[in-house]
């Protein structure tokens, strides 16, 4: 008998809401790197655990950083 998949959804709390951050800076690449995959793609909200507003702010910041070559558009991991 196959076991029914046990899934325990762990509720993630938005990092930015916790720290009460009002502004996501595109120059802070160390922080933004947490929200991109190793291919350079922006992590989805269900992965990053951000709230709607902060996910949007992060995405904008990443896009700004990409324009200024602070973050890659794509990285050639394979």
């Amino acid at each position, binding site marked *: 008998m196959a076991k029914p998949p046990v899934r325990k959804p762990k509720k993630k709390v938005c990092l930015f809401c916790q720290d009460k951050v009002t502004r996501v800076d595109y120059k802070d690449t160390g922080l933004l790197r947490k929200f991109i995959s190793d291919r350079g793609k922006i992590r989805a909200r269900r992965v990053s655990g951000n709230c709607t507003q902060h996910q949007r*702010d992060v995405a*904008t910041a990443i896009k*700004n950083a990409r324009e*200024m*070559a602070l*973050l890659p558009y794509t990285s050639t991991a394979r």
Partner: protein
Amino acid sequence: MRRYEMMIILDPSLEERTVQPSLDQFLKVVTAAGGTVDKVDVWGRRRLAYEIDKKSEGIYTVVDMTAEPDAVKELDRQLNLNEAVLRTKILRPDLH
């Protein structure tokens, strides 16, 4: 008058010592129009995430200023005409 934050990527072949004086030269446009330059932060040489104009490095600088929109527009225009400038970005930090 509005607050602006401008990031400029300069050609890596420039001497880092000459960056500050040449920036001051450009920023005269802002001060002449009644604006103020609040902070100039030269990050120095930094690797680019991808090549721009076949260059893999750039000298990053961030300038905070308070100025009229027209003065900033003119500054951006002049910077983009200059060949030592790889890229610029202007943001209004109040909106972000």
